[in-house]
């Protein structure tokens, strides 16, 4: 039996943190000891042998798919643009279902062509949720910190409530919350059963002075939780979510140009250290709950 390395089952890596082709990413994540992985549509479409081969590679990896990303600039559009985005959404949903993912991540729109009417946004998200029902997919709506209308998670939660669809919930990303300095106390207002995904990442500086810098940091300079300057806030966030009753997955959404120039196993080991810190030191997942039921082995 291998040495116990801590309970990290709640945490997964994201393929966007790793360089190279999909099979190499799957192998590195698996070898590090993770049981789940967050996939991007590009992982499938960019596979040299095509989408079907990529789907097979994911299924053969034995890794559970945390979620599938990302549908952008979807909500609030009109006319042909709106119908065009429905087609894109359908394509994403089909691939999401094919890899066995139960969650599709949707980021709030940055489009200047999109309406800022919250009821229009909610209506479109509800339509997307209904499209996803036959596939058994949940839609996680995330506030991108440079979103045009929705750029903080309390607003995302507001439109999720307005849309009121059972398979539409919220996706949280620590980066966007820290970048916008959104109070974590706002988490208390969210129904934990409607949090469909939590993405965690940190970064290396305290102040982000402009939208451009925010976008640049988000896309190139994120680090794993525990590696940046907001470790206390990351710990605070997961503890708050845990107290709230959130029992879903945490995925490391770490876009980092340096990690793209490193061996995948080295990056995966950094992610593992982060997962161990959160799983063991912060959430203490290996400590049995008092009075926890234990099943006897079959005699």
């Amino acid at each position, binding site marked *: 039996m291998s040495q116990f390395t801590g309970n990290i089952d709640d945490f997964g890596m994201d393929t966007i943190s790793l360089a190279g082709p999909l099979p190499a990413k799957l192998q590195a994540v698996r070898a590090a000891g993770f049981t789940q992985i967050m996939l991007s549509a590009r992982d499938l479409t960019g596979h040299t042998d095509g989408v079907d081969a990529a789907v097979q590679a994911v299924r053969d990896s034995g890794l559970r798919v945390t979620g599938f990303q990302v549908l952008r600039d979807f909500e609030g559009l009109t006319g042909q643009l709106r119908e065009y985005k429905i087609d894109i959404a*359908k394509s994403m949903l089909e691939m999401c279902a094919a890899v066995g993912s139960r969650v599709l991540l949707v980021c709030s729109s940055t489009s200047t062509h999109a309406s800022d009417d919250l009821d229009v946004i909610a209506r479109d998200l*509800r*339509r*997307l*949720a*209904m*499209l996803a*029902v*036959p596939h*058994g997919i949940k839609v996680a709506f995330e506030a991108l910190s440079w979103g045009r209308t929705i750029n903080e998670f309390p607003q995302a939660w507001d439109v999720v409530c307005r849309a009121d*669809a*059972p*398979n539409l919930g919220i996706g949280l990303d620590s980066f966007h919350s820290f970048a916008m300095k959104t109070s974590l106390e706002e988490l208390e207002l969210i129904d934990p059963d409607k949090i469909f995904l939590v993405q965690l990442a940190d970064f290396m500086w305290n102040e982000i002075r402009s939208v451009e810098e925010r976008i640049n940091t988000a896309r190139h300079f994120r680090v794993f939780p525990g590696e940046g300057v907001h470790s206390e806030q990351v710990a605070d966030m997961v503890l708050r979510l845990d107290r709230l009753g959130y029992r879903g997955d945490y995925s490391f959404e770490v876009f980092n140009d340096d990690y793209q120039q490193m061996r995948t196993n080295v990056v995966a080991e950094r992610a593992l250290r982060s997962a161990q810190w959160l799983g063991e030191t912060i959430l203490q997942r290996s400590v049995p709950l008092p009075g926890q039921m234990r099943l006897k082995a079959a005699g």
Partner: protein
Amino acid sequence: MDTALQREGLHAASNPLGMDGIEFIEYATTKPQALGQVLETMGFHPVARHRSREVLLYRQGDMNVIVNAHVPEVAGANAPGAVPSIAAIALRVRDAASAYRQVLERGGWAVPTHVEVMELNIPAIHGVGSSRIYFVDRYKEFSIYDVDFIPIPGVDPRPPALTGLHFFGAVQYIGVDRSYDWTEFYAELFGFSALPDEERFGILPKGHVLRSPCGSFYLQMIEPEPGQLDIGGSEYFTRIGLGTPDVLASVAALRARGVGFSGSAAVPVSPRGALTDTQLGSVSFELVLDGRS
């Protein structure tokens, strides 16, 4: 606004598509004759054959059942298998084109249909599993079958229903914790409404029951029992419910035709309802007490 107009608004909201029952239910199978035999023991008669495909229309009373053995050129999820499956349910609506547009606007997923020359293009959306939901508005003055089907010579095109049998509903197996998703789906797209838990029909009071906006058709959604294995979250229509004004008379008439009703403590043959034995690995019918005929 005067009262009459308000009433108008309420009616439109509760039945947005002008739904008016079920036009047909379609099975897919590569063994159409075996399924045909099962349907004939249930009182259905083959009445017409599709112009261009291996598709047969069975009928009794107001019920149309289509047996589709057509293998598409590109085999996909809809290609029939040896074990029959319920492949489609066609809703009667006021205006099919308008219903289709409304449903797409609310999150229906359009299915491209492949129509041959001189055939009707019946709009459809994705339903549960690989099934489809069709919208049909030509069911009064003339029917869709007049165009796409050729009557079988010498056969009564309108065979009466055995003991008043009629479509009552369909049972849909769904994944764990999926009741709310599907309830909302059927409510949002078609105007179905959930019945309170104490209102149940037949002998299998499980799951969640939805009533069609026209009040003539029910969907029963059943999640896996606790402890039962949820195999890959597979979801599908598992059987059709047939209404009858007298369950025991229908059971007697069907037994005389060779239909088995084994019965058990869990699924007894009772005046409230009865369940036929499963044929061909998947096909069973649930009889439900229902005064309409």
